[in-house]
């Protein structure tokens, strides 16, 4: 009896030890963690120094919301109590709330701006913004393309969300919208998720779940059904990470074949030296870093075994890469391509800090 109890205790100790070892293996190295936290601090310092008097960054609701989110989700745990550098950007967002519920300074990017504003306002944890958030959710839900816009469910655009006008939907926009809706606890039974899954699936190179003729079978994602800005309908890193994140937001679990295929694409194309599959590997590089960290954090598998069987601690890898690319003033910027606004240091710094915040989150 005593021996039996001893065995159970030994087994528990072994299991606990094993789990601790696995967790340690999967978390960021202690020394690197400190460096990453310093890089975050330096990035936030840059943002704080370059904040406009009205609290905005680059006079853009979208960049302001991302900058705010970078502060709120950082290891410093900043909040409204910390002063004007947090409250002023919040006020800037609130000043740009429109009567249709959108939060935007322009008609051009109403989806992006509203979505990232919702995510940032949700990160404040302040109930005061509940009404603004609810109206913003309604606005985003209204943007989703469905029967009300003259599209049937067999159309490639069905379930998608675009920039916020009449133009076509794309995976980047819908991933932002879904992130905003998820962050603000949109009803999981709302039809928005199922419709979104239809559009997201039609952006994946997986013919078993994509009814579009062009669909290949590498499991990666393209920008929108039938089009990639890099080549034909080729999969690439930024969109595959955004696709994986979108699938997870919309309720697909890790065993879903679409999730498995997307994850496999990222494994098989594992690199942080470039945005794999993108033109010259440099276009949309920091967008890739941002969504790579967010998607793998959401997927919650700290170790990733690449196509050659090599295991990667992605947290270490993304932190090391971003630390190596940080400028002396604490900023990040893509010096090789201004596409997708990556010539804007405020935006790229906010994205990079958010990526580091995701990697630092255990």
């Amino acid at each position: 009896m005593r021996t039996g109890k001893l065995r159970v205790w030994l087994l528990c100790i072994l299991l606990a030890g094993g789990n601790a070892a696995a967790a340690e293996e999967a978390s960021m190295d202690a020394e690197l963690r400190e460096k990453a936290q310093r890089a975050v601090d330096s990035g936030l310092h840059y943002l704080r120094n370059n904040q406009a008097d009205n609290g905005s960054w680059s006079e853009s609701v979208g960049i302001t919301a991302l900058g705010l989110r970078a502060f709120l989700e950082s290891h410093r745990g900043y909040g409204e109590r910390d002063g004007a550098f947090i409250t002023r950007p919040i006020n800037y967002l609130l000043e740009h709330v429109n009567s249709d519920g959108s939060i935007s300074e322009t008609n051009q990017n109403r989806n992006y701006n509203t979505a990232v504003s919702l995510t940032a306002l949700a990160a404040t944890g302040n109930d005061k913004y509940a009404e603004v958030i609810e109206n913003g959710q309604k606005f985003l839900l209204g943007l989703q393309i469905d029967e009300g816009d003259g599209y049937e469910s067999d159309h490639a655009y069905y379930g998608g969300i675009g920039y916020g006008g009449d133009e076509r939907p794309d995976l980047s926009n819908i991933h932002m919208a879904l992130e905003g809706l998820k962050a603000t606890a949109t009803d999981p039974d709302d039809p928005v998720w199922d419709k979104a899954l239809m559009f997201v699936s039609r952006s994946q190179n997986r013919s078993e779940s994509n009814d579009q003729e062009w669909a290949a079978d590498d499991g990666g994602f393209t920008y929108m059904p039938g089009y990639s800005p890099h080549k034909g309908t080729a999969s690439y890193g930024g969109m595959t990470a955004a696709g994986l994140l979108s699938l997870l937001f919309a309720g697909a679990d890790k065993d879903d074949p679409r999730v498995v295929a997307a994850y496999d694409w990222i494994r098989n194309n594992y690199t942080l030296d470039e945005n794999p599959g993108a033109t010259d590997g440099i276009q949309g590089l920091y967008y890739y870093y941002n969504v790579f960290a967010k998607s793998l954090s959401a997927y919650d598998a700290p170790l990733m075994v690449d196509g050659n069987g090599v295991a990667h601690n992605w947290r270490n890898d993304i932190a090391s890469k971003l630390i190596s690319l940080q400028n002396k003033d604490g900023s990040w910027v893509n010096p090789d391509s201004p596409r997708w606004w990556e010539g804007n240091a405020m935006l790229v710094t906010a994205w990079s800090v958010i990526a580091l915040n995701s990697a630092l989150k255990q």
Partner: protein
Amino acid sequence: MVHTNLIRESNAGRSLQMLAVLRLMLMLAVIVAVRMLVPIDNSPAQAPLSILLESSAAIVALLLFAPEQRTLLAYVPWCVAVIALLLLVYAIDPRVPLLMGRIGPLLLVVLTMALTVAALTLYLAPKSVASLFIFLALAPVWAGPVLEALNNPAWLNRLVVGASPLTAMAVALDADYLRSPWFYEHSAIASMRYVYPDMTTVLAVLALLPVSVLLHQYNKQQPKRELTGDVSS
């Protein structure tokens, strides 16, 4: 003799009318042909691009088939005729109802733009003006790589986006045409930060040339009238 002259004048007038009708039909043919030859599907997301294309074709058709005039005022009926042709085309375009509330501002911009290009033909050959129109319309495409190489300076971006006549029409339609599938694919600007001008600026800039020309032509006529008046008194 008088009777014969009247018949001749009547026949000449009828021929002119026939010619005018023929010109209008050619203009309509150009608009319809351009719309049919450029592959744009019927999805609602393509509605603004489709209407922009038809409106641009109408301006080019005006330049190619309207008779050359010596004054801007003489062009006015042709500019109005172009608007009438566009209304005819819009009436049979299934996408137009989706943008019904925005057609009025669009037609105002197209009319002002028609007067602007007509004013230009007083100084340049109509075919040259048509070429310039197409060249500027595609500015976001051919200038995209330049902007990208220069890291998209805001002033140059505004200049390039603002120079395209498509921008003026798109502002009236409240449409982000640079994010339509074709432009997103072919213009680097579509993936960089850009700002459209507002409607007031668009109309003010477009009206600048025709108003200047009209004032200039009016002033040229004024001294002659005064001189004639002095002599008769």
